[in-house]
């Protein structure tokens, strides 16, 4: 098994299978997952779908770099980041982060760290598509910058 994986893809993913994949190591007692889903509100209300754009090449590079940083801070046996691009309907999963460690605190901290950096460093951009068809680029959140800042 490749313990540290980054995947950018249009198609959906199977959360349970990804968690199971990282649960096979007999030294790992703790597996944490985060799933981010398309909500019905964001910058605007009545969201019907998101459209996700990214910067191919740089995205993968920056995500592997973020995992590398996490490995330097915490005892981490494995990690998976899957981020979807293209059009995603309400309720669909956008992103999955899974971390596996011998220690639950490390698994939790690394997963949260990866998400905070994903939100502020990885070159993805979201467009909200409302039920009436209007389309707006999502603005970056000060709260995400703040969340990422607390790890520094």
């Amino acid at each position, binding site marked *: 098994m490749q313990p540290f994986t980054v995947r950018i893809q249009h198609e959906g993913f199977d959360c349970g299978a990804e968690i199971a994949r990282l649960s096979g190591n007999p030294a790992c007692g703790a597996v944490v997952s985060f799933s981010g889903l398309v909500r019905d509100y964001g910058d605007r209300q009545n969201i019907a779908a998101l459209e996700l754009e990214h910067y191919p090449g740089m995205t993968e590079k920056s995500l592997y770099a973020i995992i590398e940083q996490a490995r330097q801070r915490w005892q981490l046996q494995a990690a998976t980041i899957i981020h979807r691009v293209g059009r995603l309907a309400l309720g669909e999963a956008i992103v999955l982060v899974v971390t596996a460690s011998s220690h639950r605190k490390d698994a939790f901290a690394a997963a949260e760290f990866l998400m905070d950096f994903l939100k502020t460093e990885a070159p*993805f951009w979201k467009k909200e598509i409302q039920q009436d068809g209007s389309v707006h*680029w999502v603005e970056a959140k000060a709260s995400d910058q703040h969340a990422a800042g607390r790890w520094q």
Partner: protein
Amino acid sequence: MKLDMLYFARLKDSFGMATEQLETEAASVDELLTELRQRGGHWSSELAAGKAFRVARNQELVRLDATLSDGDEIAIFPPVTGG
């Protein structure tokens, strides 16, 4: 020298293009931005000094004083909103 320019998200929409090849003598990102602003319209408004945008050189985020070399891939984009 030649630069491979990439624009993403709102900037791609504003500029009406995703990529271009640019012939320039700009020595730094800062000088490059000055040159782009001289195109006027969305170029000067989106890239105005107070505006939040990011610049990557060869797929790594850089500051305004980063230097440029022939063949560099320079991407300009809004703050990211993934995850």
